[in-house]
């Protein structure tokens, strides 16, 4: 196998307790990679194998560090791997205070070199846990516990951070409260993060790269937006199908309080003043919010009408609806979006791959 220093190579194949796992994929050394799939698809098992908590034949190589290579008989024990791991449920040591929990890994990590300035005060500040330091974990809320758990993992100076559904045990409100902290991690650390989740909303908000799993196998892996607009993958057919676009603020229309975002192949308008020009944000377009016209409509209340070109049309196993992937821009060279329309409309307009259209986007949400 050839592994570049700038990537993480994963491969595990074997059976654990009656469950057969056979996965192989690569991830970049930057950003958040989501392992996504339904319950029981093997994403947690894969993550545990990465950490060395479970042992299946294969390899796991992070940059230049070989943590497992069964062909050469290499298996580094978990406690000798410089990784951080955040478990699904509260896993703080109950016999220690928050501060002692945070320092547990830090003390044992010694002076391992690190790419980030991951010192105690910076992490405490980043996660907003300064006021909790002298408390017992028993006295914390679910969201606070997970923030401390993330801080504890980061303070052990990891080369990679593994997170196993860290929000799954939390209620909706707490999730919303904690997600911004995770986004800050993403912005301020160069550390690669592997994030296991079955919640597409979380993945869409956080992930840059996605590995799609089902029944112990990898269905697809690659950049999030590529997978979201791949007509051959189940993501497009999901009831809540949506596409993420990376955009940056072009200018703010002060008269109407609207922000114009430049995205590949066009400009999208979002209500509100959403930051200074140049600022990068992630936009979300739900498939159900996209419709098409053959000519540019001038008498519509919808602000976002962009030229686009149809890429593919799929039947969805439904008599009534079809899924359409379209590429923004008159020449169809821009970002891809997904749309869900009725088959009746598709027939009436004669939409087919290659048709030039105008995409009307009813709402664009900012997710990051």
């Amino acid at each position, binding site marked *: 196998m050839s592994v570049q220093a700038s990537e993480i190579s994963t491969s595990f194949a074997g059976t654990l307790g009656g469950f057969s796992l056979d996965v192989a994929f690569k991830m970049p050394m930057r950003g958040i990679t989501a392992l996504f799939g339904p319950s029981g698809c093997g994403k947690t098992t894969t993550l545990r194998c990465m950490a060395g*908590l479970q042992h299946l034949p294969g390899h796991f190589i992070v940059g230049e560090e070989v943590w497992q290579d069964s062909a050469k008989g290499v298996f580094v024990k*978990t406690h000798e791997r*410089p990784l951080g791991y955040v478990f699904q449920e509260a896993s703080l*040591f*109950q016999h220690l205070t928050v501060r002692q929990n945070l320092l547990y890994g830090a003390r*044992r990590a010694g002076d391992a070199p690190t790419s980030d300035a991951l010192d105690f005060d910076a992490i405490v500040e980043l996660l907003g846990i300064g006021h909790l330091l002298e408390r017992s974990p028993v006295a914390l809320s679910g969201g606070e516990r997970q923030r401390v758990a993330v801080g*504890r993992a980061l303070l052990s100076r990891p080369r990679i951070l593994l997170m196993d559904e860290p929000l799954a045990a939390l209620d909706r409100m707490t999730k919303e409260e904690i997600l911004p902290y995770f986004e800050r991690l993403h912005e301020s650390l160069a550390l690669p993060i592997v994030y296991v989740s079955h919640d597409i909303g979380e993945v869409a908000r956080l992930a840059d790269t996605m590995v799609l799993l089902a029944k112990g196998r990898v269905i697809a892996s690659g950049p999030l937006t590529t997978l979201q607009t791949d007509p051959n993958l189940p993501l497009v057919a999901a009831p809540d199908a949506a596409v993420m676009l990376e955009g940056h603020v072009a200018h703010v229309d002060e008269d109407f309080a609207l922000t114009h975002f430049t995205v590949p192949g066009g400009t999208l308008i979002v209500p509100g003043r959403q930051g200074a020009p140049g600022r990068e944000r992630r936009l979300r377009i739900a498939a159900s919010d996209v419709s098409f016209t053959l000519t540019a409509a001038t008498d519509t209340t919808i602000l976002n009408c962009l030229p686009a070109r149809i890429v593919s049309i799929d039947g969805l196993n439904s008599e009534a609806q079809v899924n359409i992937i379209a590429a923004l821009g008159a020449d169809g060279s821009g970002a891809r979006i997904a749309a869900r329309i009725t088959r009746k409309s598709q027939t009436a307009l004669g939409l087919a791959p290659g048709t030039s259209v105008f995409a009307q986007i009813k709402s664009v949400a900012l997710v990051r």
Partner: protein
Amino acid sequence: MGELNFAQLWSPIRLTIELAFITTILLLIFGTPIAWWLARSKARWKEAVATVVAMPLVLPPTVLGFYLLLLLGPNGPGGWIAGLYGARTLAFTFTGLVIGSVIYSMPFVVQPIRNAFEAFGDRPLEVAATLRASPWDAFWSVAVPLARPGFLTGAILGFAHTIGEFGVILMIGGNIPGQTKVLSVAIYDFVETQHWTEAHILAGGMVVFSFAVILATMMLGRRYGQQGR
């Protein structure tokens, strides 16, 4: 009934506390690895080992005492060990009592510690491993502190049970004042010789002691029960 002989009363009390103290320390030293193994091992025959450890709970003390007597006696391994320092036997010695007590009280120490180790499961140890703690490090920094209520209960029960034992002591230790004549045997003796006052003092003291031990164990259990999660 003559005047109270305090030396006669004090000697068995001192001896008993000494025995219980040494026994409890040895029980913790030997019982902890056994409890750890029973809690963590996936070996199929571990329940057989658990059963052997638990046997003293159901065996009549005389049966246990009989076999211990053979083991400790001049023709058993105990006799061989005694031979190393010029003695003939470990039976009817204080050392013999310690060995017998450790075996007899082992289940009372192993069970609560094993339960405590099992109660917190694999997770805290996995967490410790992901935070660079070696298994040995994790045992001391995570497992032992988390199992503290189990250790306390085990130590209290082991100590109390050693103080209260009678049958085994009588079988392997006899009744040698200052060497093997512990409290329970002394009470028996006082009753046999109709020294009611002395018997009352010791027996009453044991009632108070037992009450205190059980109360302490239950209060500890409640305190840790409330702390949990």
